[in-house]
């Protein structure tokens, strides 16, 4: 990885590690150079991989048992003491079971606590709705002071975990559970919190995605270009908050068509955040959101659920074709009645 961090693994290791495993490795490394880092989990040290940090620094790791509310309160207290807590549990628990503690104790006091929430979206598909986290982006986005990041793959997870230490205040990083395919060939792509990454240039339509869906967006754009001759811009909107307004506004003006894909309810997440920017810009743009259509998802393997929700390669191709076939009102028709 990057020379500046001194990490001793390569991006090719990302093929063999989940986002969570990468996180555990990076945090263990960061723990060596920053003695203020402490770790907390709620009986999910193994599942979230923060346990790797715990094995290395047992005196700086606290397992609070299955008690997420207290865990976030304790994290706030540790931050107040001057430490830098990393808190890990499943996103569904971090964003809902314990959210008032995250809000009141950490965000309200603007404390330097980093939440690395795993099993985001429907990535724990077979566990069912109680373990699907399809509301987390919406909930966290509504809380002041906190930044919200959804890395696309293991490489970006490493980048985000390192970057979050550099910014003061609460950060929520939502990662998956399984082996998200690798999107990046290098870590040298200039990851910056709040700046979208243009994965592919394009002029006919812009696909905006986050998390594991980014891989599929890139694959779909290649096929669309080859088979349909469509020039698809792909933006990896890894930071949902603060959202990269500039990249969205540029996409409106330069492509006039935007479609978002996310492993999240279509309400309140990436699509909503992008839609707010599009609407406020006041320029003509055909816009569609694709995600979980305000329903609880069925059980199933993540790849089957992504297919079902049309956020895999096939689904993205289908939805982009639909958007391009959509009648797009010309400015001279704006006097039309509804």
């Amino acid at each position: 990885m990057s020379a500046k961090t001194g990490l001793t693994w390569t991006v090719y290791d990302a093929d063999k590690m989940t986002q969570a495993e990468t996180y555990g490795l990076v945090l263990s490394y960061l723990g060596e150079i920053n003695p203020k880092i402490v770790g907390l989990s709620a009986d999910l040290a193994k599942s979230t991989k923060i346990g790797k940090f715990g094995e290395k620094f047992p005196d700086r790791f606290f397992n609070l048992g299955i008690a997420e509310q207290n865990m976030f309160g304790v994290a706030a207290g540790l931050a107040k003491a001057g430490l830098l807590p990393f808190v890990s549990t499943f996103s569904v628990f971090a964003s809902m079971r314990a959210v008032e503690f995250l809000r009141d104790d950490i965000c309200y006091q603007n404390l330097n606590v980093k939440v690395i929430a795993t099993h985001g979206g429907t990535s724990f598909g077979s566990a069912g709705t109680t373990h699907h986290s399809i509301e987390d982006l919406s909930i966290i986005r509504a809380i002041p002071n906190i930044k919200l990041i959804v890395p696309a793959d293991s490489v970006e997870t490493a980048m985000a975990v390192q970057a979050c230490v550099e910014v003061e205040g609460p950060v929520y990083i939502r990662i998956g559970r399984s082996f998200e395919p690798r999107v990046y060939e290098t870590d040298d792509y200039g990851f910056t919190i709040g700046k979208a990454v243009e994965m592919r240039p394009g002029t006919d339509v812009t696909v905006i995605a986050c998390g594991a869906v980014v891989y599929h967006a890139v694959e779909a754009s290649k096929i669309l270009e080859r088979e349909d001759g469509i020039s698809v811009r792909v933006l990896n909107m890894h930071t949902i908050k603060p959202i990269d307004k500039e990249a969205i506004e540029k996409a409106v003006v330069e492509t006039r068509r935007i479609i978002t894909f996310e492993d999240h309810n279509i309400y309140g997440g990436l699509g909503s955040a992008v839609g707010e920017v599009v609407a406020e810009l006041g320029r003509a743009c055909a816009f569609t959101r694709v995600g979980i259509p305000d329903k609880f998802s069925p059980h199933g393997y993540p790849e089957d659920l992504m297919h079902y929700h049309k956020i895999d390669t096939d689904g993205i191709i289908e939805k982009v074709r639909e958007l391009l076939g959509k009648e797009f009102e010309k400015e001279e028709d704006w006097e039309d009645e509804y």
Partner: protein
Amino acid sequence: MPLTEKEHVELRKMARKIRKDIVDVTHWCGGSHIGGSLSMVEILVILYWKYLRIDPKNPQWEDRDRLVLSKGHGGVGHAVVLANRGYFDFELLKEFNQFGSPFGMHLDSTKAPGVDASTGSMGHGLPQAVGMALGSRVLKKDWRVYAVVGDGECNEGSIWEAAMAANHYKVGNLIAFLDRNHLMIDGPTESVMSLEPLDKKWEAFGWYTQVIDGHDFIALADAIDKALENKNGPSMIICKTIKGKGVSFM
């Protein structure tokens, strides 16, 4: 250290002043959680004037003892105590609850000098206090953490989550006070949601537990001294108090 006669007289004098000031501020701001503020006056007075290692001129002093008002609705009482202890000018409390004031019903640690944790929603202070106490261990510091918990607040699950964690990690630098005034918003605690036997519950959760008269400075000093000797785990001092103490018609 047991109280000297002189200390006892001065603490009682201060408690009377604090009570009068709480009533004044409540009058100025048009209403507050006055009853629960009056019931914990002796607890805060003995901590701020005898036990806490603090420097009011340097509220963020790293090595200070911490105090977390877990029953955050007692904010008016806490603010009056902090003003009298020299953290800020008492006159500022004339603006209590008003637009733009650093002080409101539930105190904000980012605005009110001397407030170690923002609280208000029930069950949030004790977990933060446990975190602060663990923090001193990681940083090899010797500060102590004191928390004041409400009795109605003990309905909250997070209080017992924190109680379990404090015992599990043998947090010996944490002393909590339970303001046992027997009243919550909808009525007597035992009619809204039974708490007793409260001392047995805290004991069962592994806390060194004492039950005392929470308005008696001598009993408070004795209990705190014993709790300070107990370095192997968390301590709970259940303080039997009267809501609205000091105001005859409350």
